[in-house]
């Protein structure tokens, strides 16, 4: 993919709407392109605005989480996607 083609994919990449080889190509490119990384950050900030709904976390969720903080560390699934 050319640079302009990759740029065209940055919006769908930021929304996790691209998969497979295309996703890998974008991620590979992001590792070396600050300009495109910045654009992805911007798109995610916009998405975060859209997701900033009023709803509070459910009652009891924090208590459940607290119990797990001191539990033996179980390795979470490795997830090395850009920015996560």
């Amino acid at each position, binding site marked *: 993919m050319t640079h302009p083609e990759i740029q065209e994919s940055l*919006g769908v990449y930021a*929304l996790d709407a691209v998969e497979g080889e295309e996703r890998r190509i974008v991620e590979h490119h992001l590792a070396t392109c600050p300009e495109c990384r910045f654009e992805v950050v911007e798109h995610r900030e916009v998405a975060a605005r859209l997701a*900033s709904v009023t709803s509070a976390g459910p009652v009891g*969720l924090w208590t459940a989480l607290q119990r797990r903080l001191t539990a033996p560390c179980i390795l979470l699934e490795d997830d090395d996607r850009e920015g*996560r």
Partner: protein
Amino acid sequence: MNETLSRRADTDLIDGITQRDEPSLAEVYRRHGGPVYGLALRILRNPDLAEEIVQEVLLRLWREPHKFDAGRGSLRSFLLAHAHGRSVDLIRSESSRRTREERDARLSAETGWSLEEEVWEMALADHVRTALQELEEIERRPIELAYFGGFTYRQVARLLDTPEGTIKSRIRTGLKRLNGALTRYGLAPVS
């Protein structure tokens, strides 16, 4: 809630988490747990799974706070991006076939839901709504389906009977237009 803690910047809370300070994580949950849960619930339509996503996102922050880089955006967008990625992974995985079938059934029946009907945090509501109104439906709908529906752009293209390249382009230009509008209203980035 500790008043001093509630005034600390997100980056200070990350420092606290790095030092295993549980109240710092509690404050992160208080600030951002609601939107993270809301996004996961929006995508998964399953309260139990959404709670699991919130726990996973915060546990990961607790165990790997160094993965948050303030130079790459706000803490909220970092947490939401993680929650979004995990939610779409879940909904696309074979193990959640039943969830997907329910979702597809919902989509086929879906007529009413739209971003404009969501209730935003009070301070944001009017500005976000106004910014969304600057988008054409042909840009807004693909963003809704991709972000809140958890669909890939190829799936969105099929759902909207529109070429894949066009959907990609509309999502990008739509996000840019929203960014411009939100910036004009002094709303970017998320704090």
